[in-house]
């Protein structure tokens, strides 16, 4: 007799009508959507566009497959057990015969199960080791060296070179050559961040006071979106990064442009814009190469107009968004270090004119 006077399982509940088929389509749509929006930056861990992501993808698939198999087997065993269990009702005595003597063949079943699990785990371990070795063995000849520093809530990139005059600094948008290895040295300026470029590699922590390294290679041209993957404060969710992989010649041209200081403003309006930049609070946090603005708290703006996005990958880089961002960044990213900047409209437009010249 059960405790509360109701039998265990009397009737199966009626199935609830749900648009099950459509719901199950949603993941499929999400997976396929990036393919449909080919021009938008890709951020998809299931699509590998670089050799490291391919290794990880293979490990992922193998793990998924193996675990799915195990899951299926366990589920099957469960269903079997349910099916072959003796039907009973409230008055049926529970079967406690296994207390008296072990089930027939129990040791054999356990041995098989443990054996299969061990083999499975060893297979996973082996796959993991193979993958790790493959990741570590990516050839590094002719690598592009980038030092990526995480800030709250933007990315600073310093491109390194043996010749100091060929080094340069940019922010939030990396360009890399297709087919050449990229060695990224990761640091953080304040709290722990994590770099995650799902199409190119796995995650790597950026811990203040420590340096970590990530090496990857993009094997196909495209724009890949990454983001911070370690909670780092109010705007952690708004800390994205674009990686543009392009043919080497285009990359070299981009790098050569980045090495140049900002062009001299040519019109009186752009000159006024530069005056506004240097005279107000902008130069207290930002740098524009070739001017006296050389502050490092905020992103380097020397080639701002050449970037596809602003606010660390969150807004498209066009005049309207830039104007709104400068006037009140707190609307989009409350708590971001950049304050609101009230200024007369003519000053704002002159400033925008000037910033648009910073290609």
């Amino acid at each position: 007799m059960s405790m509360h006077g109701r039998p265990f399982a009397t009737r199966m509940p009626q199935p609830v009508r749900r648009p099950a088929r459509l719901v199950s389509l949603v993941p499929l749509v999400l997976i396929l959507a990036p393919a449909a929006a080919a021009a938008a930056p890709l951020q998809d861990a299931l699509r590998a566009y670089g050799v490291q992501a391919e290794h990880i993808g293979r490990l992922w698939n193998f793990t998924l497959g193996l675990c799915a198999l195990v899951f299926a087997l366990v589920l099957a065993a469960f269903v079997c057990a349910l099916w072959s269990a003796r039907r009973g009702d409230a008055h049926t005595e529970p079967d406690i015969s296994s207390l008296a003597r072990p089930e027939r063949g129990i040791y054999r079943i356990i041995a098989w199960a443990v054996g299969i699990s061990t083999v499975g785990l060893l297979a996973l371990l082996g796959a993991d080791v193979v993958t790790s070795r493959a990741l570590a063995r990516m050839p590094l000849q002719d690598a592009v060296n980038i030092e990526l520093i995480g800030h709250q809530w933007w990315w600073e990139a310093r491109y390194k070179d043996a010749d100091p005059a060929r080094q340069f600094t940019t922010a939030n948008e990396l360009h890399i050559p297709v087919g050449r290895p990229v060695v990224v040295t990761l640091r953080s300026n304040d709290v722990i961040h994590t770099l995650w470029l799902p199409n190119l590699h796995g995650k790597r922590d950026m811990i203040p006071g420590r340096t970590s390294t990530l090496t990857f290679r993009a094997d196909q041209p495209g724009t890949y979106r990454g983001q911070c993957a370690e909670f780092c404060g109010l705007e952690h969710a708004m800390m994205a990064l674009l990686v543009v992989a392009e043919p080497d010649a285009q990359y070299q041209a981009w790098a050569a442009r980045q090495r140049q200081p900002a062009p001299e403003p040519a019109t009186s309006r752009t000159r006024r814009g530069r005056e506004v930049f240097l005279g107000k609070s902008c130069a207290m946090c930002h740098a524009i190469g070739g001017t006296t603005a050389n502050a490092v708290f905020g992103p380097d703006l020397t080639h701002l107009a050449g970037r596809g996005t602003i606010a660390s990958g969150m807004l498209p880089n066009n005049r309207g968004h830039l104007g709104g961002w400068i006037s009140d960044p707190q609307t989009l990213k409350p708590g971001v270090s950049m304050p609101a900047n009230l200024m007369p409209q003519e000053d704002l437009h002159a400033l925008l004119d000037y910033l648009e010249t910073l290609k």
Partner: protein
Amino acid sequence: MAAAAAQADPGGDWPMAAHDHANTRYSPLGQITPANARSLKLAFSFKLGPGRGQEAAPIVAGATMFIATPFPNTVYALDLSKPGAPLKWRFDPKPDPAAQGAACCDVVNRGVAYADGRVFMNTLDGQAIALDAASGRELWRTRLADIKKGETVTMAPLVVGDRVLVGNSGGEFGVRGWLAALDAASGRELWRAWSTGPDSEVRIGPDFTPHYAADRGADLGVKSWIGQAWQTGGGAVDGWLSYDAQANLVYHGTGSAAPWNPDQRPGDNKWTAGVFARNPANGQARWYYQWNPHDTWAYGGGNENVLLDMPYKGSARKILVHPDRNGYVYVLDRLSGQVLAADPFVAVTTGEGVDFASGKRKINPQKIPRTGQAVRDICPSSAGAKNWQPSAWSPRTKLLYIPHQDLCQDSATYDVSYIPGTPYLGMDNKMQPGPGGSRGALTAWDVAAGRKRWSIAERFPVWSGALATAGDVVFYGTMDGWFKAVDARSGVPLWRFKADSGIVGQPVSYRGPDGKQYVAVLSGVGGWAGAIVSNGLDPRDGTAARGFVNAMKDLPVYTGKGGTLYVFALP
């Protein structure tokens, strides 16, 4: 052997801070000897005020003594021919008080220079001024520096022929360094040689023949920097200038690179932290050597270059001796710039000498600052094994008397913004006493042998200059207020006098109108080492004064502020 081009008046004047163009700080007067030094008595004193670091050398020409004070840079002229040396005139240049906010290392002034009846001075707010020596009347005034960028002038000018050479201070503020030559008669700027930038601005041309390959190439003052970093690269010429009349070369150091955080300025950062040999007529560089490539620990290279003609390692040579901030005494061939020797005079953890083939200092990678991390036991500290305080040479003992400190530091660097008029550092330091146990010493260095002969340990860094005399007596002052005379050969203490404040000035010796030998020094603690007293800093913050306070927390117990000229003679 003789010091090169000694221009001192054999009558016993002290016309420039370093006594002569060779920077020997050696007085040919021999009346005071180890036998009678214990009888030295105070001849007269003169109250200077204000209570900041008195780093100047009293300048004596004929029967007048000229003293420059820290901000507001009053110049006093004392009439030595009358008993008690009464005031002859005073000159108040009225510099801009805002300049005090741009002075890294106390609002000091290192002295005036006398030549041809004129007295040349610099003010903290960057003006070079010429005065009539007899009346104190202003002859001309030239503004050279912009305090809004954090640029000041603290050094003692050098007169070479008809030119006055002046260099700037402000490397800590991201100011680009320069050395300028002004016409002594009119104050008109004749040329200015920058410490960074394209060759035309650095005045590197066809005459430039550096000894080492690393210093050859076009526009290295741009190419050894990232982007436009050379524009705020430092290299201030805030130290000592020496001059070889025969070779017609001026030797000057360039200061530390900016910012102090080396990660923000990859590359060798030419032409900071090195020594230039230039033609004083047009400023064109003849050679350059970089004491500290990439200036990893913000040492700079502004220490004095003492010019000596002596037999060195077997042959008669014209050498340049330079005790550097990095803890090594260098001997260079001063005509070619080749390094002949580099030997440590303190315990050094940041490197292991110099590679004589390439000329580069061999550095210890473990002590390189890393952004966001603390690196400990960096010896010497950023103040250097020896800072501005000048050493003295005795041709009789062949020893170089080096006043210096023995401090190590812990450093943590961080990314710093360049904001004009604010310090451009990026380094948190905490200094502590070095392994020797005492924080300072006066070391007698045997130049020919390349090692220490004797050393006198002191409680605090010996932040004063040294003076050597023909009587074989060496004078120096300590930060706890003792003015000391020691035997030049053995270092045995002979005499000492307790001044009313710590001594960070440069002692000088002159022959008074009565024929006696006098020794004069300013007391008044301050400078970077004494800032805890002169600027009333709080000892609870170990990083105050860029880490110096951590090593000087007990200084206020031993001394307060002061500002007095003391002059001593035998009775």
